[in-house]
């Protein structure tokens, strides 16, 4: 585990400089006019970033309204009997529900939950595993589809949410085995 961790963190640290160096030097050998071509590509960055603004604003506003209203407490009260039945601790429900909606919101919930129940308790390890193993599905969908102007997202959202749910069950299972 320790060797794996050192290896991966080393890889993360050198990945970007190595990639830039390799791409540019290789291209220069192939007689590509590196600077001119890079500027050409960089121009697209502005367009894409501006294009996602309306999608991002509307998606984040709807999530912010949901969060500020405290509707999550109501939602948790509704699903709690179900999760109690399966044996999932109710303390991690806020995290499971917030994770796909908001990155900063779930970061806050992870910190609060760990402070309340201890970082190395079952609940503490479970919330941090949940945070570490899934992405903010709504944000990713808004940004990625927004960049190419997709309005009909078809089965993307149900797929993302089902995958989040599977990740949640898997986290409960693997943390249970570990601790």
């Amino acid at each position, binding site marked *: *585990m320790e060797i794996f*961790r050192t290896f*991966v963190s080393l890889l*993360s640290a050198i*990945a*970007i400089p190595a990639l830039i160096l390799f*791409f*540019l030097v290789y*291209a220069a050998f192939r007689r*590509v006019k590196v600077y001119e*071509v890079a500027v*050409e*590509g*960089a121009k*697209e*960055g502005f367009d894409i*970033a*501006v294009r*996602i*603004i309306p999608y*991002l*604003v509307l998606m984040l506003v*709807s*999530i*912010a*309204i949901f*969060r*500020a*209203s*405290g509707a999550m407490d109501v939602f948790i009260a509704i699903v709690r009997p179900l999760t109690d039945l399966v044996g999932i601790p109710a303390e991690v429900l806020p995290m499971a529900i917030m994770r796909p909606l908001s990155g900063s919101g779930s*970061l806050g919930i*992870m*910190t609060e939950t760990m402070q309340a129940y201890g*970082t*190395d308790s079952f609940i503490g390890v479970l919330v*941090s*595993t949940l*945070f*570490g193993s899934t*992405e903010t*599905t709504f944000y*990713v*969908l808004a940004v990625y589809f927004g960049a190419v*102007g*997709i309005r*009909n*997202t*078809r*089965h*993307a*959202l*149900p*797929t*993302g949410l089902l*995958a*989040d749910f*599977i*990740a949640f069950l898997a*986290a409960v299972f*693997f943390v249970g085995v570990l601790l």
Partner: protein
Amino acid sequence: MLNHIWLALIVIGILTAAGRDIHEVSQNSYGNGIPWMLQIESPQTISVYGEAVETSLRVPRRQLQLHFHETAAADAVIPARVNLTHAREGVAVLDVTGDVPQQFKIMAEALGSGETLTARLRHRGSGWEAEFDPVSLVYLKKVTNAAFDIAGVAVQIAIGLIGIMALWLGVMKVAEKAGLITSLARIVRPITVRLFPDVPADHPAVGSMIMNISANMLGLGNAATPFGLKAMEELDELNTKKGVATDSMVTFLALNTSCITLIPATAIAVRAAAGSSDPAIIIGTSFLASLTATIFAVTISKLLARVKMFRWDRSEAE
């Protein structure tokens, strides 16, 4: 689907806020209009009138129960800056950032910055009578503020992306011109032809997707987004119905959102900061949980693509 959930979040949010506010108004949850009876701690220090003094206010347990309709375990002692006049009247600015009853924090947030709460003081008998501005419709105000604030934040996020996007798209363009992206796509061909059957195996989109997923696995979020957005643009070039997500786009996003995590860097950092004895213990569990999720995500994306309501040939851009 996204339409409905988006609308539902807004409707549920506003209705819940309105419901809570109506409940609080009917209960008078913040004791509006009922004067508070409290003590100024060490009043002898307030000998000079017309000058602010740092002290604290003691709010008796009974008063908390009377105003907040909840049993309180102890008196509340709240740090405050008190400014009195000769007529034994004055103003107290309460600092509610510390360990004070939750309601005071909510009141401070509803009436101003959220850090301080202003009370008008008047001498009465052996103590002081305090009065706050009335507080109402807390949740609806919170919802409004949150919506306006986040609208600004969203633009900041997008603007913040410009620099990093320009850098990576510049580097990517160079790699593409040199033929590197096509070579990369050719190497992973056996996997990608199965995952993305409608994308030609040496299409630049494949290279960008691989770069995105690799960056995500290593926890390099800043590099992952530009690669991912580039991949979406390239996938959209193959799209015959603009505005409709293709099967490949959905499978790619399923891979992206459930992405296999080698190092959950943020979670480990937060655990270390919170004083964990073994912050990195979650590496194994995160890896296994995300691996499971990724396998299911790809399978689910393939299965749902065949469901009637999501089928490609039945989907229009509206």
